[in-house]
């Protein structure tokens, strides 16, 4: 698979790798995918008192596109409200990273991950 520059950049220098306290009230965790399918994404967001996402962390098991999609997503969600973050579409990610058609599912997974993280934080409220 020949990747574009942006995928390679995120893959080689992934942003915001790490873990937040999943039990904290202001942290939402989204874990999507399955090992059997070859990709699992864990995205975590931390929201401040103003309802703004102030921190985002990820870890991803998967191909270069999956890693790049989740890395990009953490950059995008920071500074956004939950409502704004929920607006992020997989097509935006795929377009930004110039993902080839066979890798579109990686961006779908990233969209699922942010939705799952938002749902998790809402369920704690």
């Amino acid at each position, binding site marked *: *698979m020949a990747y574009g520059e942006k995928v390679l950049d995120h*893959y080689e220098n992934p942003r915001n*790798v790490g873990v937040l306290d999943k039990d904290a009230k202001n942290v939402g965790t989204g874990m999507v995918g*399955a090992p*059997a*399918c*070859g990709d699992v994404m864990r995205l975590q967001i931390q929201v401040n008192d103003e309802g703004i996402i102030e921190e985002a962390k990820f870890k991803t098991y*998967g191909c270069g596109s999956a890693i790049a999609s989740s890395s990009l997503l953490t950059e995008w969600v920071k500074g956004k409200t939950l409502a704004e973050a929920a607006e992020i579409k997989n097509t935006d990610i795929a377009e930004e990273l110039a993902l080839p058609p066979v890798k579109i599912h990686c961006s779908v997974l990233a969209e699922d991950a942010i939705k799952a993280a938002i749902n998790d934080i809402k369920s704690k409220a």
Partner: protein
Amino acid sequence: MSVPTYMDYSATTPVDKRVAKKMMQYLTMDGDFGNPASNSHYYGWQADEAVKNARKQVASLIGADPREIVWTSGATESDNLAIKGIAHFYKKKGNHIITLKTEHKAVLDTCRQLEREGYEITYLDPMANGLLDLNVLKAAITDQTLLVSIMHVNNEIGVIQDIEAIGNLCRERKVFFHVDAAQSAGKVAIDLSTLPVDLMSFSAHKIYGPKGMGALYVRRKPRVRIEAQIHGGGHERGMRSGTLATHQIVGMGEAFAIAEAEMSDESARFKILRDRLLAGFIDMEEVQVNGDLDQRIPGNLNISFNYVEGESLMMAINTIAVSSGSACTSASLEPSYVLRALGLSDELAHSSIRFSIGRYTTEADIDKAIVLVRDKVEKLRDLSPLWDMFKDGVDLSKVEWAAH
């Protein structure tokens, strides 16, 4: 830009310079460019002589009679010709063929086609080490069985099947036996003067010959008949028509002759390199060699680095060229069917890397691969939520995943 170190010799090999040099003498006006079938003039005779010599060279490596060699375009065509050829010629005798789930697609898809034509196919499960249990084969043979097709050496995991024992069983039950030897010729000793094998497929490009060239061994005594799949001028005693590609044939012959001369030294050298590579990984956490380590060609190491996805690992180690059983490296998005047939979980199959060592691999290449892979596996595990969960003692098989 410096090119990556090649460690994918099971996919293909470069043509040996000695082979290429010889091939170039059969192409141009000042070379022997004639049609080997032109039996009325000098040009044809020269080309025919070269083809005869190559036929001897190929036959010599495998202990066959030159008249038992049929030139083809590669092992895929040889597999097609052998399996369809037997099925069609002997269709009044039976309609059942037995093969193994870990065979190359050239065998499996040929069998699928025969299923569509009404034949019954049994796809046997290998044991967890990749080898065939003879009792499983014995139980599968019926009075309708025409042919058993089992590969000699597996392309992904490098395991060597006991073709002598399988062949003896086939003889006992009066069933034809075809062996795909694309990955074994020149790597494992083959002596068809004693081995109970009826048909054997060969490829040139797996042993430093040209791509687009292969051969099928068809036994003369006792005589094995096959129905041609390509019709035309009646070349190759009617079994495979088409003008013989003299330069390709000469290349295959030369490659086989070199293999015969250098095979034993080369195997010993590969084994030292492979063992060095394995020793470089074996103390890492959560690594597993796929397929039997003893019954295996020396140039192959197929190993899973658990909790790391194969394609991203290949990206990370892009200064060496290897293969992975990961879905992401295939068009189908399915992980390796060979590793799945051994009973590996999808995630272990996704995490596998195949290193294959060859004629131009050096000790420095091996040491480079060890350092690189160890470093990148650690980096990717730091990035892997599965590795975190494993470290926290979570049983991943018990987690309910949202499959997609």
